[in-house]
């Protein structure tokens, strides 16, 4: 499903010099895979995730997604592909403070071409599936961290993406809450969703099918 070839990401240091965050990345991820990206701080894990998520456009190399050469796409086409295929879970949940749980779930749908009735049905399904129907009118600040991340995951998959990217999804949760989220990830993966997560935790990585180690921008 995903093929990265010779992908590099660098930032200018001045005087024509470059600082490389990612070097010569070759990576294949199949449909239904569950990959954990690990490595020390500054290794380039999050950068890799944002390249996979098509948030970052300043890289070089080749990136094929479902045989589509994204490196040839214009920004707008990439955004369209991302909206169709990719969901994101963040370490800090990033729920919108002024919106209710229901409204937070509705946001990704509002940016895609869903009708009002489809959106209502999909949000209803997600609330039901994640057992948060009773919390639909609450604001994020009224939820625990685990509940917030649950909503975050529900929001990431509500538009039925093929790929779920998670950046330290349990980083702000205590262990039992983290475990719940990882179990949920495994369940989603078992249902066929491809998952790539960035994590520092060996335990969380063990929920995945394979581990990619990064160090100083290189896959080791």
């Amino acid at each position, binding site marked *: 499903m995903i093929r990265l070839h010779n992908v590099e990401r660098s930032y200018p240091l001045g005087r024509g010099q470059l600082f490389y965050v990612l070097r010569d990345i070759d990576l294949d991820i199949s449909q239904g895979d569950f990959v954990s990206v690990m490595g020390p701080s500054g290794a380039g894990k999050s950068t890799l995730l*944002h390249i996979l998520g098509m*948030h970052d456009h300043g890289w070089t190399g080749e990136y094929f997604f479902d045989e589509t050469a994204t490196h040839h796409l214009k920004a707008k086409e990439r955004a369209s592909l991302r909206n169709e295929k990719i969901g*994101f879970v963040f370490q800090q949940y*990033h729920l*919108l403070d002024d919106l209710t749980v229901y409204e937070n779930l509705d*946001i*990704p749908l509002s940016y895609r071409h869903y009708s009002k009735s489809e959106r209502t049905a999909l949000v209803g399904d997600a609330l039901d599936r994640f057992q948060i129907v009773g919390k639909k009118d609450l604001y994020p600040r009224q939820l625990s961290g685990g509940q917030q991340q649950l909503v975050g995951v529900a929001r990431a998959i509500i538009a039925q993406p093929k790929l779920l990217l998670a950046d330290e999804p349990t980083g702000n949760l205590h262990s039992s809450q983290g475990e719940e989220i990882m179990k949920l990830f495994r369940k989603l993966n078992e249902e066929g969703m491809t998952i790539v997560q960035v994590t520092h935790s060996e335990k969380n990585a063990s929920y995945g099918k394979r581990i990619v180690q990064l160090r100083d921008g290189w896959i080791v």
Partner: protein
Amino acid sequence: MRADLKHAFRMLVKAPAFASIAILTLALGIGANTAIFSLIHDLFLRGLPFKEPSRIVHLYNSDKARDLVDVAISAPRYQLYRDGQTIFDGFAAENSFAFTLTGLGDPVQIFGGRLTSNYFDVLGVRPILGRNFLPAEEETVDVALVTKNFWQKRLGGDPNVIGRSIILDGTPHTIVGVLPNMPAAWFGASPTAEVWTTKPFQIPGFSYAQIMRGSFFLRVVGRVKPGITIQQARAALPSLEQSYRAQHPNNIDSTLTTMLRTLPEDVTRNFRAGFVTLFAAVSFVLLIACSNVANLLLVRFSGRRREIALRMALGASRTSIARLFVFESLLVSVIAGAVGAFVTWHFVPLVPRMASNFLPLEANDATSLSIPVLVFTIGLSILTGLLIGIYPALQGSHADLVDGLKEGGRGTKGSLRQQHFRKILVGAQVALSVTLLAGAALLIASFIRLSQQNIGFRSQNLWTGAVTLPTSQYPDPSARQRFVEQALHELRRVSGLESATISGDIPLVGFSRYLYARGDRDVPPVEKRAIAPGHDVAPGYFKTWGVPLLAGREFNEHDSADGQKVCLISQAGAKEIYPGENPIGKSLLLAGLPWEIIGIVGDVRSVRVAEAPGMEIYRPWAQHNFPFVNITVRSNLKVDPVTRLVQSALAKVNPGLAIATPQTMDAIVAQALGQARLMTWLLGIFAGTALLLATVGIYGAVGYTVAQRTGEIAVRMALGAQANDVLRMIVRQGMTPVAIGLVVGLGSAFALGRLLGTQLYQVSPHNPVLLATTAILLAVVALIACLFPARRATLVNPMQALRAE
């Protein structure tokens, strides 16, 4: 408290960008208010330098049916009221007059009046030297009172001035007193009044019978007795009126109604509405400035939660935190007040120069920063400081101690309440701006219409100057006719002058009114006859002024004093008085005599630019004239060379004559539009300032929101929002308070329209096109102000923004 003040000062110094923007914004608002207040103080509050001016009343006549408003009082009416009234301590009259002063260098025209002997006693003005007139001097003795300026400038401050003689209109007058300089508000600013004599009931060229028939020319004042109210004085007038009607039933003014106003009310009535509008406008500007700075303060104080939390952790109370912030806002507003006052102090004295013809301001001593103006500025600055500071200070002082310490120095999003408050501020700015812009748009449209009016003559390259002919040398109409013939003869020989003419008056400056009636119908009684401006004109008048002859013929040399009495009338008059008829050959009854209409000329707006043309009557100078002469010449030369040429031509006829107020007709037309122009300019400037401030306010508010919501925008983009989605969201949220403000502003502009009603010409105060244009203009500007930060929002890099979170 001192430490708090010191801290507030230090905080301002540490944030020079914030301090300068806030101070400049407020300085604009406070400065504009100080400027207008200083004018209001000079015009309305300072008061006339008379004894208890609110007890002095000005009496005037009106007859709305005959379109006569605020006209002067006739001599017989004055005399009857004076003898019959019981409500006034003193009752006096003035007949404004221009004298030719000779014997002190070149002859000059000076202004003043002929007074009843008690005039200055009634006003309560004591001479600084000598005495006021005595009753015995009123009718027969040639005495004069001069101002301090006259004494110092024209008589060199002569210590023996009392008893000295000056020649006025060829007659020696003995100076009996020197008065303080008189206020422009009552006596006029341009020209300034300098000399007064007695013999108030005499007008050169008018016979005693004419005067006693009810010609109105006296400005009458009365000092109300102690214990009698103005209402009681008003109530006493009808019985005096009835007596006059009974005793003089055939006088031309017998049907007029007498009214009175106190002097302070009288001198301000013409520009009261204008200044109410201007004061409202500058108040709006200040409120908009306040809301901008309040917004800045809210952001600034909210961003200092760590400092607040630390202070509270160290024992500070919420009150002391709020006080700290209020001091900061007060410091900003007081510095802004000082800057505003400084700018005002330099710019306001320009106003008398721009507006001396319609605002009674003395250029030398008016509109300086007086104690009341300074007190106003200081008070306004403190009020402004409290207004902008209290809410942000209270909000800032409500910071949560634990959260504040956790967050460190990072800025916060601000509470929902603060966000609402900011939206309210933006909405209020827009509402105030749209109201102000609508007002300015109405005045500008009105002014454009007014200045595009066809005034009926070609004012370009037209020079005019006034001359008073001394009655001692020109005692009768034939002598004055000879003067005109000789003067025109000399003037037409001067190269550089295209054409020249003479008339008794000129458009937009002064005019006489005459009763008239059709001679071919039943003649109504005198008191029911219509009244119209009348002009005595010499040959060449219509050519020189560029007024077209539409039918019949002009005056010629055969229209002499002994010939058939002839006249010309205006086109509007012909249509009004002779509808569907040819008036030529018909007779018009003027002063009881038939005058044959020999022609019709184009309409001239002789009274006011804003007054629609009506009946105007022109008579040949040879057949009807007074010793007041206006010379008009058409020339490409500038004012001073023309004045010199005319003066030298005049000197050949009579070297003792002086030209008063030489000027171009363009200048006179410009002055006639001056009040409207000044109002338009001032309101336009204030509206422009309001628009600028509101734009900055909207830009700032939306920009701050974008900065505050970078994380949220990044999340939305990470969740699939496209650039257009973000743009739409920011613009929609930015424009919502704008839209509400527009609706409220249009509503208030509609409601306040009537305030402007009296100042508009041919423009409805509720003109839908102008109101809609104003709203669209503001909406477009607001949209642009929203688009810049919204565009910035679309450039948020979700990866970087989220990582920063």
